[in-house]
């Protein structure tokens, strides 16, 4: 992969929240990249830092209490984290589009859909309102909204949940961004509507070389769309690699535990079979962690895990895992830190 194809390169991103209870290291040294036209799935449970990572990149973390305290995030040759407010504003609407979980709260209820889509075109692409509204109609058509020429005059409350999410996608796509960040885009939707939105995102993947970062807690959604996957736990990426590789050969006990704990509707019902659960609770991010954050819940834990935090080791090519224990060979990893 040459540098031209690497649209985003994030290194050692660190974001902290200073709360009354103490300092929360919500993102604790996260590194990842995104290439042209690929879909990166970021998966993890609530509070693992997956949304905060992406909001940090776009300087959307409310300060105070939050602060990005370290790292770089290069979009091409420019560092997003050191940009001025006006520069990052242009990036947010032109180069990186974003869609959120709840399509109702992310749309402005008192503006028509057409104005909300056309807005960024007028602002950043110097289009006339007339031309921008024409483009809005094309975009609504592209995201599968019937009768778009009429619907641009409607307000958000006149759309159903799935349709609103389509509108959000149209807004995010308006300026033909290089990256689309989708944060739990289907979590608030019903199953059959989720299938429609996933189908739409699948059709959009790679169109005009757009890369996509898909944040979700649903391992099924990742399996459907992602080329590569990053598994997050307690503010860190604990495993990353090609989706097929990570799912077929999970190398971190957390990834393995998650995949084993899921019942599958394509598997037979077994009356006697219990689900394999991960014991314990997700970590309290206020407590400082020595060593591996997953150690208190891990069934392979040994002394080193409690004192030293493992880095992401290269396992095979792109497949990396942050764990002292080699699941495959059932031995300690022979790597010095």
């Amino acid at each position, binding site marked *: 992969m040459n540098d031209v194809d690497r649209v985003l390169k994030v290194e050692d991103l660190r974001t902290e929240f200073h709360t009354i209870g103490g300092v929360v290291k919500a993102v604790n040294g996260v590194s990842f990249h995104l290439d042209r036209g690929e879909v990166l799935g970021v998966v993890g449970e609530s509070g693992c830092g997956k949304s905060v990572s992406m909001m940090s990149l776009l300087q959307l973390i409310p300060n105070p209490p939050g602060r990005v305290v370290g790292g770089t995030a290069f979009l091409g040759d420019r560092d997003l984290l050191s940009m001025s407010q006006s520069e990052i504003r242009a990036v947010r609407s032109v180069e990186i589009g974003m869609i959120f979980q709840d399509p109702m709260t992310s749309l402005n209820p008192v503006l028509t859909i057409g104005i909300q889509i056309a807005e960024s075109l007028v602002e950043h692409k110097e289009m006339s309102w007339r031309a921008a509204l024409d483009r809005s109609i094309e975009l609504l058509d592209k995201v599968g909204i019937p009768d778009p020429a009429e619907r641009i005059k409607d307000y958000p409350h006149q759309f159903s949940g799935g349709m609103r999410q389509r509108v959000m996608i149209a807004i995010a796509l308006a300026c033909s961004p290089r990256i689309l960040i989708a944060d739990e885009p289907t979590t608030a939707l019903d199953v059959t509507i989720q299938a429609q939105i996933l189908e739409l995102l699948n059709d959009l993947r790679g169109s005009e070389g757009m890369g996509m970062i898909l944040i979700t807690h649903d391992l099924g*959604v990742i399996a459907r769309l992602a080329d590569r996957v990053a598994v997050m736990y307690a503010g860190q990426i604990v495993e990353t690699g090609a989706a097929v590789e990570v799912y077929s050969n999970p190398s971190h006990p957390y990834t393995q535990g*998650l995949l084993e704990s899921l*019942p599958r*509707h394509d598997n037979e019902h*077994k009356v006697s079979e219990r689900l394999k659960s991960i014991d314990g609770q997700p970590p309290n991010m206020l407590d400082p962690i020595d060593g591996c954050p997953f150690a208190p819940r891990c069934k392979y834990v040994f002394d080193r895990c409690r004192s030293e935090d493992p880095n992401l080791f290269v396992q095979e090519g792109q497949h990396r895992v942050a764990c002292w224990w080699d699941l495959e060979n059932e031995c300690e990893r022979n790597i010095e830190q």
Partner: protein
Amino acid sequence: MLVGGILKMNVSETLNNKSMLSVKNLKVHFPIRRGLLQRQVGAVRAVDGITFDIFPGETFGLVGESGCGKTTTGRAILQLYKPTAGEIVFDGVSLAHLDSRSMRKMRKRMQMIFQDPFASLNPRLTVGSTIAEPIRIHSSLDNQKIEDKVNYLLEVVGLSPDVAKRYPHEFSGGQRQRIGIARALASEPDFVVCDEPISALDVSIQAQVVNLIEDLRADIGLTYLFIGHDLSMIRHISDRVAVMYLGHIVELAKTDRLFLGALHPYTVSLISAIPVPDPVIERKRRRIVLKGDVPNPANPPKGCLFCTRCPLVIDECRITRPELKEWMPGHYAACHRIDEMGVGKGLPLIEIEQ
């Protein structure tokens, strides 16, 4: 699978004689009122004539999308909503005609686990008093015995007895759901309605809570109505499953029968819509993506409820509403087109779609 299937069949066949709960033509309509005089101008038919039985010891899954009436059904069974029509018979007694004293006795035997563990616990009561409350109401134990029982219940759900003095905000979602389960068990019920008990929980915690719910069924001999939208979990936990759409049951069958040989096009598309957590399989799967949204339950379509989105719709579907018919022993579905499609060939609709 065969072993499991046969085993389960034997279990429910021996139990077939006497149902624990019978829901007969249950209707729950919510009035729509307009104008100065608040005259009723229509009704949201949340549940519109559903019938099913639940047998002792089984877990009956009720699945559907939001607004299909599954939660309303659960609440109407416990008489938390007054049914508009129809009858609910629990252990031979029709609940509609009970006076409040006899209903209270019945309530002791029917409990509920709620979806949102953050909203269903009183933030001003300690965990201990939350769990003790149903015991105080339904029994005449003295304080020491109540405390012992609370401690025992906490242990049953996997919490240590010293949490009794703490308040709900000190617990995580999974722990709160355990507290909610302990409260439901406090009155020693026979039947528990689980209303999406895991959908508010993190993935790694869901399995813990589901295992607890399953263990309790085996240990205490509970019977469940398990309401959910996650078909994978429904398949894991239920013996029989009913699929609801717009206030009606469109298909009802034993779990494996439903997942391997669904007859109703809605069930088939619902199953095909859920992504499988395996990229190799997921990318090869054929799926039916339904067009459009669920119609407004205040203004449902005239014929078959699913006719606005069905990939197999014919003219007849738009005129007459199909009845829920038994196509094979214990397998019910409401669709005009099952005859032509053929019964028992496994997901026939998916083949046709492609």
